């Protein structure tokens, strides 16, 4: 029934329309603003990627940024000019040194390698209980950081890697953002996604119903890793320069903060959080570079932005732990059910009542 399908797809359609609208408006703005929007969209992909796993399984992963790093470096290695590689990365294996792939296959490669890495890491990790798994993902982040940071022949180690093709603009990043959001929506509507969400509420009951929780978590984890890799790819081709240092705690915090503030339990939350936090960080960045008030320039001390962001995340957790979206997707605004449709019941504070 077309009306019913429309209603079901509305949460997704609304998000996609909103993103396209934002991009359209931005395309009319000066290039500086456009670049900010592109950056926001890249983070949006990263947050949606994290959501695919953390939101559906209830297990927070601190390791997604390492998938971003993997994706970024793979795509970089495949797209950098061989001449540059010969100079900066003399230790590369021959086929990589010679490789000069077009952007889209290189991006896909980045995502796929990240996904494979996610598979490799996920197989042991998904057997752990929630908190232990989260801590273990932290270990993955650290391992990746150490390995990439010291693997000088392949990544340049502590040195920055220059010369990535700067192709990440609105016209290239927007489609990826739309794909990521659509994939996240599609996944959570599949049987697999539903099974994972069931385990989020009550792992024991889910296992008893025959759901292989570990396997479902693994699927989500790998899909999440793929899109994290894509986000990393785009990040690299947005900046043109890669440093291992940037794929560590600061970025992890930012991505996690975006998801938490927006609301970990719904796709709307992921998207909202990414956009809202991007906006806030942009405003804070403006403050730090100085705002003319009257005749004087008022500038905030550097680092204030980060501190404020951390404070904001803490406040959200204390005051509204379910985030802005509170686990809801966008509701169909016309007709009987005009209010937000909760995807599943919220239970942030476990508390006494069990």
């Amino acid at each position, binding site marked *: 029934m077309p009306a019913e399908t429309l209603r079901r797809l509305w949460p997704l359609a609304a998000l996609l329309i909103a993103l396209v609208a934002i991009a359209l408006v931005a395309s009319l703005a000066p290039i500086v603003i456009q670049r900010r929007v592109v950056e926001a969209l890249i983070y949006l992909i990263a947050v949606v990627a994290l959501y695919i796993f953390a939101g559906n399984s209830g297990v927070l992963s601190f390791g997604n940024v390492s998938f971003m790093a993997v994706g970024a470096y793979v795509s970089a290695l495949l797209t950098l000019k061989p001449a540059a590689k010969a100079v900066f990365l003399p230790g590369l294996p021959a086929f990589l040194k010679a490789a000069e792939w077009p952007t889209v296959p290189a991006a896909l490669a980045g995502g796929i390698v990240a996904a494979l890495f996610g598979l490799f*890491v996920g197989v042991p990790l998904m*057997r752990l209980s929630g908190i232990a798994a989260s801590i273990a993902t932290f270990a993955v982040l650290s*391992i990746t950081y150490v390995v990439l940071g010291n693997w000088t022949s392949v990544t340049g180690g502590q040195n920055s890697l220059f010369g990535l093709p700067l192709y990440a603009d609105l016209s290239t990043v927007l489609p990826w953002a739309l794909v990521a959001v659509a994939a996240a929506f599609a996944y959570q509507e599949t049987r697999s996604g539903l099974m994972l969400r069931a385990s989020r509420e009550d792992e024991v009951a889910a296992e008893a119903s025959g759901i292989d929780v570990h396997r479902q978590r693994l699927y989500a984890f790998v899909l999440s890793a793929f899109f994290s890799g894509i986000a990393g790819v785009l990040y690299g081709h947005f900046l043109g320069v890669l440093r291992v240092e940037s794929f560590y705690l600061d970025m992890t915090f930012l991505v996690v903060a975006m998801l938490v503030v927006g609301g970990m339990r719904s796709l709307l939350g992921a998207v909202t959080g990414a956009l809202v936090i991007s906006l806030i960080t942009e405003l804070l960045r403006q403050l730090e570079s100085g705002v003319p008030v009257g005749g004087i320039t008022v500038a905030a001390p550097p680092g204030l932005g980060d501190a404020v962001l951390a404070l904001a995340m803490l406040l959200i957790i204390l005051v509204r732990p379910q985030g802005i979206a509170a686990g809801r997707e966008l509701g169909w605004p016309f007709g009987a059910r005009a209010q937000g449709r909760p995807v599943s019941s919220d239970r942030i504070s476990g508390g006494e009542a069990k």
Partner: protein
Amino acid sequence: MINLAQHVVDTISVGGLYALTALGIGLIFGVMRLINFAHGELITAVGYALLLFHGWPLPLAMLGALLIAVVLALVMERVAFRPLRGADPETLLIASFAVSFFLQKLLALTVGARAKGIDFLPSLGEPIAVVGIRLQVLQLATILVVAGLLAGLSWFLGRTRAGLEMRAAAENFRMARLLGVRADRVIAVAFALSGVLAAAVAFLFVAQSGTLTPRMSLQLVVIAFVGTAIGGLGSLVGAAVGGFLVGAASVILQAVLPFELREFREAFAFGLVILVLLVRPQGLFPARGLKERV
């Protein structure tokens, strides 16, 4: 032979430091099911406090720094974690992550992100020979401090009223409260103790590294977290052993790995951790009664 003994001393002293760090984290997790990411910031705060109190007589400076750690821990509990009591572990984890990040950034904002040198107990860097083994006084001090604190903590938990209440609360918090154990007090004591442990770790760490940065405790704390996971969440013995093992693994790998791979030793250590978790997902010394609640 002497070389081996030196390696053993290295291993024990580094492992001990990580064990102490892990204990601070495990103590809080035991009573609150909270993984306190901000434990690292307690250590960092002590380091900077030593800088602040530079020029004071040493015992006074150390006492002052210790008090700062305890007060910060108590404030952290009161402001950020008490409102979240009873929340599920994931929420608590995120909250402690936010607190940790906030404190790091606040510190960077106020004292600057650049490294600062600090001259703390430089005499500990002197070499000393014990039973023919050459080691630093610092290493000996580390081993003694770790042993002393472990013994002290054991005594506290096993032989005092407050310790008894804490053990009961760690096993089954609601039942303890039903018997009249005051939740606020038990948790506050746990945080205060974690502050003391953080201070001890800070003293030893700062004496060795001589530098302060807002992120200096990061490595300590990441290893300690992973150590508690491998040791068994909820078990103090597990936390200490797990922290020790991962720290020790890092040192052993440093000695054992071929030169080109040495920088990757942390990666290897964590890789081993993941292997252990594969085999024993619940950790080496899982706490009994972890699921118990009224």
